[in-house]
């Protein structure tokens, strides 16, 4: 029974994740007045990539293939730690939130590592940028997690995400949204549609990947997007206190709202210049820090 349940969960995460980039692209197309690619475009892309062969550089070590694989598994494991409303998480123990943060870091490390395997200058540049943004966005994410843990007095994701974040919910939501945009390389930080190597970040890292490894990277990125959208929704809404049906509705609505929000941000905002990015990330960090202050002060008063 338990096995069936966990497999069902895995299937839900694996199947639903590629839907989000499709929705974002649809929103962008709608704002621009185009018809846009179909919502299921990423599924077609993944299927096509899976059938294709892999072009391997003679320089690359097995890490070139292992990197995306480990990153994908780490992200899949991270998603299983996240509770789905009142259904709870597939795997939950005291301190699992630390594992979540480390799994995300491991996925990032493996992508950057695989990117540098071929010795391409562009990929080294992309990895350097990705990792230097991550320093700031991880600080914001850790502060956000600390806020939730101070607010609920717990370090287990299931109990931390059950109630709403209290008075600081707006601050925390805004901070986590900035983190979401930065971690998933969305527009003010990186343009997922760009084809100019000098300005790419995430896309520059995966230039030399092809076939199934590229499919794993793309699918992992979409799972990460869904993970952050869920984290944001559950941090702000009291999902754990609703009835199962209402919780499922709230989760779906929240994730959809976040996705449409990302699409709108991408349509209405231009990419920031590199020197302005630390400013925005610092703002996100400060938003989370003030949410922490509110949680701490509110808890004591």
């Amino acid at each position, binding site marked *: 029974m338990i096995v069936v349940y966990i497999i069902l969960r895995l299937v839900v995460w694996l199947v639903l994740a590629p839907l989000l980039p499709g929705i974002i692209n649809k929103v962008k197309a709608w704002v621009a007045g185009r018809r846009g690619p179909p919502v299921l475009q990423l599924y077609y892309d993944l299927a096509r990539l899976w059938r294709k062969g892999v072009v391997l550089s003679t320089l690359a070590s097995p890490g070139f293939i292992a990197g995306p694989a480990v990153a994908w598994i780490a992200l899949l494991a991270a998603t299983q730690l996240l509770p789905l409303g009142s259904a709870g998480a597939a795997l939950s123990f005291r301190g699992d939130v630390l594992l979540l943060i480390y799994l995300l870091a491991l996925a990032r490390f493996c992508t950057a590592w695989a990117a540098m395997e071929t010795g391409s200058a562009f990929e080294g540049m992309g990895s350097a940028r990705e990792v230097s943004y991550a320093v700031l966005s991880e600080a914001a994410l850790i502060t956000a997690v600390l806020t939730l843990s101070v607010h609920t007095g717990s370090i287990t994701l299931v109990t931390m995400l059950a109630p709403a974040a209290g008075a600081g919910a707006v601050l925390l939501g805004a901070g986590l949204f900035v983190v979401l945009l930065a971690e998933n390389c969305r527009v003010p930080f990186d343009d997922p549609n760009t084809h100019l190597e000098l300005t790419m970040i995430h896309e520059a890292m995966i230039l030399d990947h092809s076939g199934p490894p590229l499919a794993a990277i793309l699918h992992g990125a979409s799972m990460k997007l869904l993970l952050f959208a869920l984290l944001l929704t559950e941090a702000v809404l009291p999902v754990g206190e609703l009835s199962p049906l209402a919780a499922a509705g709230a989760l779906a609505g929240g994730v959809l709202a976040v996705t449409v929000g990302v699409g709108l941000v991408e349509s209405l905002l231009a990419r920031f210049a590199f020197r302005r990015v630390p*400013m925005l990330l*610092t*703002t996100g960090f*400060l938003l989370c*820090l*003030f949410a922490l*202050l509110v949680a701490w*002060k509110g808890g004591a008063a």
Partner: protein
Amino acid sequence: MSPSVNLLVGVAMGLNLLALGSGRLPAVIRAVSVQGMALGVMPLIMEHHFDWLVTVVAFFTVAVKGFVIPHLLSRATRAANVERENQPFIGFVPSLLLGAGGTIAAVALSRALPLLPEHTGSLLVPGAIASVLTGFVMLIGRAKAISQVCGYLILENGIYLFGLLLINATPLLVEAGILLDLTVGIFVIGIIVDRIQRAFDSLDTRKLTVLRE
């Protein structure tokens, strides 16, 4: 009274950071004016019964801080043709972090202060200290004269917040007098900025260190 007052002080604290982080002068001026208006309506919320003097002073505070002073400042900005702060002494990210650190320190510090029991739960004192610190950071860290004026205004807002603790003890006439001084001060600074611009072709205060004939 406490939740709505705390919300307004929280907004004022957020605007402090916005002013610290923004490089564009119109945005800084707008932040300062919104902060002035938020603080201007506070006496109305804090007073439980209607008092015509409080209402008049609140009205004038909002009018002066929200409209007259920003108008004077943005006219000076336009006349002097400065749009943004280019090379501040303290960069935007460091000053933002300083401001945030100051705000957190203010919240922590205000718990150690021997306050009246009715003021312990409110954010008035932390907000006042945070605004004063923000004002100092802007006064020290910015190179353009107009940004420094904005820093001075934030500093004054902090002092005004502190004065609200004594709203029942001090006559609001004092507040009205301060407001008048402030307006005249900004008016004079507006003229001076114009003169500096004509004499030096720049509003950078770093260039004002040498006397000229």
